[in-house]
């Protein structure tokens, strides 16, 4: 039995939790899927490997008040901390199983035709073995690594009750704001054009919102009618409004788990915008989200000496 499975099993056997939220192999190659075990038998399926990309803390607010164990990578632990900071969960209800994370893969990095032709795939060390019929191809993990993992500053969970160590090597941490600097080098008009172009395909399905562990509001502004913020006639202007408003709502909260980008059926990727706000919060207020469960949310507090240079 794998280590995650035996740990989950004992937590359920001892009655310490009602449910364990973790990963099991998915039906598609390189995509582990969420698994909810309510009985010791169901715990047998749990795995932990570099295909365990989803952030499972998205399921926790709806389990508020219940005793839950959850597997968290570095980024997931930070979204969990934000949920604790915002009182969406209590620490007492949780058993946190930390996963030391070497970085996870996403098949979104493969050309779609190649991915569709795969029959199976496995990760072995720093290699991904892709099988399509009788063909076998090896690609480095590096090539399929999820974007946030390239710059991740907190691969080790910031909170945990148990820790499952990694036996993979650690990566060099790339500059987290490289994508921001790259965009900032463009002329102002060009930046707006790029933003418009990026969101123009958005169909307003809100999959990004649904996938985000921190978009837990039961009453999202997008769903309101009085006033109506977006739509019902959807235009690029609505897409811009939605994405700018969502970015503001995640400012000082987003932990760069990457779930929103992976969820989008149209491949819309605004990660750099969220990174810019993360950077602004760090520079202006010296705050990094998701590190301290006791810290007040950055926009729910202030310091009299906060910069006010932009105010006449």
């Amino acid at each position, binding site marked *: 039995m794998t280590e995650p499975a035996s740990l989950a099993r004992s937590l359920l056997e001892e009655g310490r939790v009602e449910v364990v939220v973790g990963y099991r192999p998915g039906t598609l190659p390189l995509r582990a899927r969420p698994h909810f075990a309510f009985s010791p038998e169901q715990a047998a399926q749990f795995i932990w490997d570099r295909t365990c990309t989803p952030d499972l803390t998205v399921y926790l607010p709806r389990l508020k008040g219940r005793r839950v164990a959850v597997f968290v990578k570095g980024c997931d632990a930070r979204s969990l901390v934000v949920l604790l900071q915002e009182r969406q969960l209590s620490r007492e209800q949780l058993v946190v199983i930390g996963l030391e994370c070497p970085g996870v893969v996403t098949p979104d990095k493969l050309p779609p035709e190649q991915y569709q032709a795969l029959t199976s795939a496995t990760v072995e060390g720093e290699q991904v073995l892709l099988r399509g019929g009788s063909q076998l191809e090896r690609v480095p993990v590096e090539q399929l690594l999820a974007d946030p993992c390239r710059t991740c500053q907190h691969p080790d969970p910031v909170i945990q009750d148990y820790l499952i160590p990694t036996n993979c090597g650690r990566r060099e941490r790339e500059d987290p704001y490289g994508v*921001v600097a790259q*965009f*900032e080098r463009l002329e*102002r*008009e*060009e*930046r*707006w*054009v*790029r*933003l418009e172009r990026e969101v123009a395909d958005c169909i307003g399905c809100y999959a990004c919102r649904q996938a985000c562990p921190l978009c837990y509001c039961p009453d999202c*502004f997008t769903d309101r009618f009085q*006033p*109506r*913020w977006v*739509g*019902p*006639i959807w*235009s690029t*202007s*609505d897409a*811009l*409004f939605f994405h*700018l*408003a969502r*970015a*503001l709502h995640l*400012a*000082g909260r987003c932990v760069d788990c990457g779930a929103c980008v992976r969820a989008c059926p149209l491949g819309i990727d605004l990660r750099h*915008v969220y990174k*810019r*706000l993360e950077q*602004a*919060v760090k520079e*202006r*207020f010296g705050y990094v989200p998701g590190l301290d469960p006791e810290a007040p949310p*950055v*926009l*729910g*507090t*202030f*310091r*009299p000496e*906060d*910069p*006010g240079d*932009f*105010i*006449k």
Partner: protein
Amino acid sequence: MSGDGDFQPRVLAFLCHWCSYAGADLAGISRLQYPPNVRVVRVPCSGAVNPLWILKALQRGVDGVLVSGCHPGDCHYLAGNYVARRRLALLKDLLDYVGMEPGRVSFSWVSAAEGQKFAQIIREVTETVRALGPGRKLVKEVATDD
């Protein structure tokens, strides 16, 4: 929206009831001259200004937005303007980053005694927005739904 020479920008100003709105009032009763391009929305406190209102105003074709509240330390609700300052700083950074013109959205602290300053800020904001020309970015072109 008219041609080059006679463009009259529409500026929407969110003014807090206790300071900036009173400052505007003082400008009025002191008969100070300032451009008639500003439309005022009185709000209880700058901390009550939802940044989405600002985006919505730009989407509906307003050419410029001003948010004004009490000076730091003077907020009637003690800390509303401090909280607003964090929130609005991030709105400003976001708009700058994605390529909105600087000066479309402005912020100020104006007290109830600063009628002069209020008139001056309205002049500045109006001229800045006039120079930028009509707001285009974010404007929704299709017929509105309500």
